[in-house]
């Protein structure tokens, strides 16, 4: 059942991405409305999929690679849709839906087997640590998407050659605000997720929670990137291109951490 829902969600995301791309070229509002509705449908199907999987597995479905990436895709979709309530960022749907689609593709390629949970992972901290971290990553992903759009738009404005993107991308100010909003939500969540992970590690390994493994180091570096950016933004007013670049680079670090986490297996202590 959950797999069927996953397939349906995947298909709906695909349609969304295609329609958003068509909208990106044609710029007809009618098409965008259709895309938005299908996006909501896809995200709902995906939500059901995660709920069913939770029931089938008996624990929070963020343990295998398939589950984690799928949850990541779901978080990005939901964050994007939640932002629509607050304010609109013109044409960001196209970029987001494509990223979500790619993640779903990666997720569908991984093994969908339901693995029995190792005993040390049976903790109330599993859903807390994993879901908060992944939702934080989703916000940071949106920040990076916004950053990429900013860099594209800024380039057109600086070089004064108004090509394909100029009329289709939103204003620099909107993109910079998107960046700031996403990071000011994503960064505290990330901190919280890391803190939960720390507590959990203490529970498992007792007094030696800090382990020098690449994943933890990478997570720390990522955290420092965002902390630095937040600091500079609030004290010196860093914004614009510099902030956009750091957001994009820092998100690469996020992805690297994510990769370490996934390659480390279900419980990432090795």
């Amino acid at each position: 059942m959950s797999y069927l829902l996953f397939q349906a969600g995947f298909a709906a995301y695909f349609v969304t991405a295609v329609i958003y791309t068509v909208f990106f070229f044609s710029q007809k509002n009618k098409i965008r409305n259709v895309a938005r509705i299908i996006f909501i449908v896809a995200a709902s199907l995906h939500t059901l999929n995660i709920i069913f999987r939770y029931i089938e597995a008996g624990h929070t479905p963020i343990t295998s690679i398939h589950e984690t990436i799928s949850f990541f895709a779901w978080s990005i979709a939901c964050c994007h849709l939640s932002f629509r309530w607050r304010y609109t960022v013109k044409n960001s749907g196209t970029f987001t839906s494509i990223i979500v689609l790619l993640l779903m593709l990666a997720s569908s390629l991984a093994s969908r087997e339901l693995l029995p949970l190792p005993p040390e992972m049976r903790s109330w901290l599993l859903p807390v640590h994993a879901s908060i971290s992944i939702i934080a990553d989703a916000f940071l992903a949106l920040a990076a998407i916004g950053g990429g759009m900013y860099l594209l738009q800024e380039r057109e404005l600086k070089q004064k050659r108004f090509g394909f993107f100029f009329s289709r991308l939103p204003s620099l100010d909107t993109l910079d605000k998107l960046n700031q909003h996403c990071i000011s939500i994503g960064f505290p969540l990330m901190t919280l997720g890391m803190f939960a992970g720390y507590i959990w590690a203490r529970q498992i390994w007792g007094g030696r929670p800090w382990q020098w493994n690449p994943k933890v180091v990478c997570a720390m570096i990522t955290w420092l990137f965002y902390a630095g950016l937040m600091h500079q933004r609030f004290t010196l007013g860093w914004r614009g291109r510099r902030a956009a670049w750091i957001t994009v680079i820092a998100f690469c670090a996020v992805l690297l951490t994510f990769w370490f986490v996934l390659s480390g297996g279900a419980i990432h202590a090795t």
Partner: protein
Amino acid sequence: MRRDSIVLLGVNHKKTPLKIREKMALTGGYVEPLEKLRELDGLKEYYLLSTCNRVEVLFVCQDPERMRREVLDLLFAGKVSREEVAGCFYVYENEEAIRHLFMVSSSLDSMIVGESQILGQLKEAFRHAAEQKTAGLIINKLLHKSFSVAKRVRTETRIGANAVSISYAAVELGRKIFGDLRGKRVMLVGAGEMAELAAEHLVGQGIQEVVVANRTLERAMKLAARFKGRAIGLDEVVEQLLDVDILISSTGAEGLVLFKKDIVPLMSRRRNRPLFFIDIAVPRDLDPEINTLENVYLYDIDDLHNVVEMNREQRDKEAVKAQRIVEEETLKFQRWLDGMEVTPTIVDLRAVAESICQTELAKTLPRLNGISTKERKCIERMASSIVGKMLHHPMCYLKADHGCVDQAERIVQVRTLFQLNEQCEQCKQADD
């Protein structure tokens, strides 16, 4: 005697880069260059137009080749080399010159097609030429005609609907940078007409405050009062930039007014809030290097051109209509010009006389009963000889070398006296 040529020489934004244009611009006003051109005795009439997008000279002379060289040397010697000039100048003669002038006046040749500033600039330029008495019969007629063509284009097409000149581009770019223009502050450096127009447009978009900086404080205060803003002196500009988001510069200064080094320390104090500079002055006011700073966007007048280019398509349709009007008017003017020669005037005069003769005969002859063919011939001959005698002196007046009145002037007199233009139109219509 050879017929006079109408020659138009110029550079505009299409062919000549800003770098050369700004060297050629007549920054010192029209009086001096008009006075200078008086030295050339080959020029019968002339006028000058200098705006930020074009510099044009229109003159009437006998020997266009020679005069072209002399005029260029006189006006631009020392400013640009001959090679540079040769590459970018366009030269139009007679019909082409007329067409070009009409295109300019009706704003079809403008950077922003359909903008209306050019007409004001043209009138201003013509006023100077008229005051200096350098515009004679042909230029007078031609310029007046160009004003009416512009008016016709404006009323008969929708070409002006989308274009509000530079202001349009400024608003469009401002939106891409700031998202929303509400609550932003704009500063005008130099109180030019174009800057005023741009400010007006921006205020329409919800700009919070307008600050005007000008060399003469009085003018600044006057303009500031219009927008309920405040006036400042030119030396306060850098300090005031802290609170401003958009700056429009249009001073008549010869050199740069604002440099990169002025802006660098400002940005950290502004906490990197973006700054948008628009330089509509020719020669430029703002250091082009400013654009390399982060969160600072500098656009000069040529860059704005690119923005406007994007909206071109929808205007092109109207432009076709407008071009047709220009074409019509060019032909009409050409006809008038042709009539300004001795021979066609004589032909017209004869034709008018002949037609009067025929009309009167047609009225009278049927009333005379019982006259023979011979008598009838006599009456006809008498009528035509009266007309011929009446016309003899006007004809001599036209043809003879007259010391004090110029031939062109005499042609106009005769044509006006006998209402030849109107009469001939009627004759032609009757023929059709």
